[in-house]
């Protein structure tokens, strides 16, 4: 790709970007949120047309005017947000749009066998007959890769494939990528996790604000240098310091049990407590009940056994509003679904929790001036980059949306913070900022429950770690006893 330029109205997402990847090579494409990585790759996949520049494949200049043409040229893309139809089976998902599959009575069984065989070849275990929507995130990821391969991808683009994977799952993906590369596939690997980039890629290209900031061999560089190239300055991730000052327990969870709408038992006898001035992390492989635990504490799901106490007051069946009044703040995992109102303004989002407080309302009417001033302050304090606070929050980049959510939660000095995967998909700068904010809350005497699948994050920030496996606590480890091996065993369900 040479001199590519893509602009969305006034926003120039790619400006004179040149980028090349060779067969058998794993090439990292890095950059902060909004640097233009996804846009560049969407142009390659024929989903958008660049306004300028040219693309060559195997030395031949080509015009990629649509996804079909991209596929013909052997380009396959695994999107940042999965492109699977949840109500169809894996095989049906892969069959979609394939000319080779008969129109009437498609040979789905035969296709499924072929998929299984292909998966086996590269160590990508997928169940071709399962419904895509019922698969774990990691399996969906594998399905996406198989889908691209089945369609004959010679150039495979993976947009933040590990953002939603556990370390183990991510680690399991790497041999697959290597095997593919060894078979001659050219791979573009987009990630915000520098350790992964160091571990698996051959070359690195860094984008900054839509332009190429540099391109180098992985072997000849180190994370610090890459990070500098990405943000144009120094960043260091914060680290927990000082001994816990754990005061009285602000959150107590007592033998919580929960069955979901489909009748699956999600939590069983989970107990934990978080004291003032303490960060307790809940570690575990994704889907072991973390989300349910968080939602039961916050009040989005009703547990059927056990109790939740906030600052000593029983809240098990109280509405969310009461918990917020008692000092709870929640940074949910799924931002779009649970935290923000995409079409409402940044201002409205910023005060959503407190719109009815006397500070923001009088006689049931909202106080516009106060509200806007508050939003402006929040935007300044949390370094949210935007045009105006009256902009719809959905038009902000993911990282900036997350900052508004964080600001909304933390600006009212909560005594208890429940943060679920708060740094997922964020770049280093944003991650550092967010983590330092959590530490600040701890220092201010709040209780923080950090639910994360990122072991690095958990190890760096937690005073104590509670490990969940299949909805049960398999162990509690104090900071002095932290070790990756130990946690790994607990996360695999083996009580030490």
């Amino acid at each position, binding site marked *: 790709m040479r001199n590519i330029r893509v602009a969305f109205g006034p926003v120039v997402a790619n400006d004179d970007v040149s980028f090349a990847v060779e067969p058998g090579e794993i090439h990292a494409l890095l950059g902060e949120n909004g640097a233009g990585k996804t846009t560049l790759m969407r142009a390659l996949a024929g989903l958008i047309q660049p306004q300028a520049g040219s693309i060559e494949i195997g030395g031949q200049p080509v015009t990629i005017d649509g996804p079909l043409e991209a596929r013909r040229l052997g380009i396959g893309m695994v999107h940042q947000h999965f492109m699977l139809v949840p109500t169809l089976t894996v095989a049906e998902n892969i069959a979609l749009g394939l000319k080779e599959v008969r129109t009437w009575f498609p040979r789905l069984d035969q296709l499924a066998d072929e998929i299984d065989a292909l998966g086996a070849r590269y160590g990508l275990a997928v169940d071709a007959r399962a419904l895509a929507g019922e698969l774990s995130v990691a399996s969906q990821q594998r399905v996406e890769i198989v889908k691209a391969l089945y369609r004959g991808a010679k150039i495979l683009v993976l947009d933040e494939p590990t953002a939603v994977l556990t370390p183990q799952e991510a680690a399991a993906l790497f041999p697959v990528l290597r095997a593919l590369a060894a078979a001659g596939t050219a791979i573009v690997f987009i990630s915000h996790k520098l350790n992964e980039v160091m571990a698996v890629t051959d070359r690195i290209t860094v984008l900054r604000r839509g332009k190429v900031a540099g391109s180098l061999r992985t072997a000849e560089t180190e994370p610090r240098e890459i990070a500098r190239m990405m943000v144009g300055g120094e960043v260091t991730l914060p680290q927990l310091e000082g001994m816990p000052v754990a005061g009285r327990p602000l959150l107590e969870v007592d033998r919580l049990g929960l069955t979901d709408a489909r009748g699956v038992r999600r939590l069983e006898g989970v107990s934990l407590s978080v004291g003032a001035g303490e960060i307790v992390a809940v570690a575990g492989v994704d889907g072991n009940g973390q989300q349910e635990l968080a939602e039961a504490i916050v009040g989005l799901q009703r547990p059927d056994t056990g109790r939740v106490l906030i600052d000593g007051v029983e809240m098990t069946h109280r509405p969310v509003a009461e918990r917020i009044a008692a000092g709870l703040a929640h940074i949910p995992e799924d931002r779009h679904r649970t935290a923000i109102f995409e079409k*409402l303004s940044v*201002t409205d989002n910023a005060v*959503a929790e407190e719109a009815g407080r006397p500070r923001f309302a009088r006689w049931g009417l909202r106080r*516009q001036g106060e509200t806007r001033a508050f939003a402006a302050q929040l935007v300044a304090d949390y370094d949210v980059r935007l045009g105006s606070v*009256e902009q719809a929050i959905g038009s902000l980049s993911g990282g900036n949306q997350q900052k508004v959510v964080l600001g909304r939660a933390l600006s009212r000095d909560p005594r208890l913070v429940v943060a679920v995967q708060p740094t997922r998909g964020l770049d280093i700068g944003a991650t550092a900022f967010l983590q330092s904010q959590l530490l600040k809350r701890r220092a201010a005497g709040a209780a923080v429950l950090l639910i994360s699948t990122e072991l690095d994050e958990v190890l760096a920030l937690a005073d104590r770690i509670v490990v969940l496996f299949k909805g049960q606590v398999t162990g509690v480890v104090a900071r002095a006893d932290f070790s990756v091996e130990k946690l790994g065993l607990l996360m695999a369900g083996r009580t030490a």
Partner: protein
Amino acid sequence: MSESASAAAIGFARRWLLPRSVLSGMLCVLAAFAIGALLIAAIGRDPVLAYLSLFEASLGSTNGLAETAIRTVPLAFCGIGIALAFRAGVFNVGAEGQLFIGGVAAAWMGLQLGGQPQWLVLPAMALAAAVAGAGWSAIAGVLKLKFRADELITTIMLNYIAIYFVGYLLHGPLQDPGSPLARTARLAAEARLPMLLEGTRLHAGLLLVVVVAIVAQVFLWRSVAGFRLRAVGHNARAAENTGMNVKAALWTGFLICGALSGLAGFSEVAGVQRRMIENLSPGFGYTAIIVALLGQTNPLGVLAAAVLFAALQIGSTTMESAAGVPSALTTVIQALVVLLLIGQNALPRLFRRRAVTGS
């Protein structure tokens, strides 16, 4: 686009008051009329005469304006109710049935209180209508919140049921004694809305609906409850997570729509018919859905759209009587106006997109 009140007001002004968009809106209406003119000429009638009578009957005379205003009242009541429900994410299309239930409740109350002073009777009737309409809507609410039954469907079914139920009441317990007709007895003078304009049928329901529109506008854009209503409509899960009472907002959507549609029934009974009749509404509740959405689910916008529709409906029936244009054709012209108006709203957006993403 911002969603705050002032910005909404600007948006409203831009949509309805600024010359450019009014101009293009007028162009749409004109285009619809041009097509209509061809059809009118095709059956050998005079389009010019037809349109003159349309204008004269709806906007060109005091009486025409009054009639347009009268028709605006039920359309705007239902339309605002529907708009607020839609804002909460409640797809309540049951205004028609709620209107009938409200009308019969108002008439019943008016007959019960015969002889009491007007200041007591009218509010009591309005209250009865609002409560009854809201109660009817609440059936759909319970079905949705307790049984997860899609309100789009249940409200359509409830419309049929309401109309037949009212039919039963008017043929049975509430029938005008001594009359074979399916209607209640005539309301006493105290139970009728005061007239606003000598020589016309214009009644005080108009004032009520204008007040309601303004209150609804303030409620939606300036009040905390209105904010929560909109938030729930945008993303119920996020609303719950931020401590809002989602069920309360959904209930608000159901009940406001029912209450306002009930008031539409009240104003028709107390202002126009002076009793409850079997065919109280010629589909006001359905037309109001179009009105609500053409008005961008913005109470004042809905009011404006209701005026447009009222004028169109009033004018087009006169076109039939004065110029011999069959009512079928006037229906066609109404539909064309709607289709061209929504087309006009969408087309520029489409071209703008093309211009940006096109290579």
